């Protein structure tokens, strides 16, 4: 029950903050609303009893990516008025509204096979998921060891590439 209330609160915050990011003319305020949206998504992870994902969301998105974006906002001008729409926004609004309607219809209309939940199979509500995620990633047979290594190489390449891009010639 508590998780349900938390879901509704965080869902409303996430949607309103995301709408604010899109509608806000001031780019800096949009960045702060984006941080609020990230926080609400972390709360959504909490209501899904995904504790490690919530912590990773707070650390990576709210801690790192938001700082990067705010730095980007401050290093470029036109902060006050630089977030307006382009000429194609009416047709884009129609397309996105149609896509949203289609997605919501499919999600509601599909009969998701959640029988395991109804029959009372094991959902560990309060077990920490960190070691289970480690087991899932580092499993010898069905794990994700190669993607993990590729991800490490990707991060390294991204950092070196970012430094090389902004370095003075």
């Amino acid at each position, binding site marked *: 029950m508590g998780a349900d209330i938390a879901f509704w609160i965080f869902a409303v915050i996430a949607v309103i903050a995301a709408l604010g990011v899109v509608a806000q003319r001031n780019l800096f305020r949009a960045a702060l609303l984006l941080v609020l949206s990230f926080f609400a998504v972390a709360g959504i992870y909490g209501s899904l009893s995904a504790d490690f994902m919530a912590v990773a969301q707070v650390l990576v998105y709210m801690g790192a*990516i938001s700082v990067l974006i705010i730095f980007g906002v401050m290093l470029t001008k036109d902060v006050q008025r630089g977030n307006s729409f382009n000429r194609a926004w009416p047709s884009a609004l129609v397309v996105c509204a149609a896509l949203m309607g289609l997605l919501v219809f499919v999600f509601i209309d599909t009969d998701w096979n959640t029988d395991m939940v109804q029959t009372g199979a094991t959902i560990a509500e309060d077990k920490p998921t960190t070691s289970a995620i480690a087991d899932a990633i580092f499993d010898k047979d069905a794990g994700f060891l190669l993607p993990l290594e590729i991800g490490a190489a990707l991060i390294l390449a991204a950092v070196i590439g970012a430094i090389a891009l902004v370095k003075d010639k």
Partner: protein
Amino acid sequence: MEVELTHYLVLSGILFAIGLFGALTKQNVIGILMCIEIMLNAANIAVVAFSRYLVPDTVLLTGHGFALFVIVVAAAEAAVGLAIVITLYRNRATVDAEEMDSMKG
């Protein structure tokens, strides 16, 4: 009203559509990057919700692993994207997506 998988998926769809609208219509490149982050977050909510409701076995947290990889790629994308934006701003003195047309044929 009990919250189920459908609620999380509908929330994910709404956030994705909002982010897509922003990414299509924003003139400022940093605004476009923000909206892309919203879209990635929406996809992550759907992945974790599927992992929670369709495979509720704690040993099989594959969806969490997927979402973590999405976070890794999003971090790399934000770093490189902002570096490109700052380089373009230094060379062209603009962050307007419509004025960045030097690769236009």
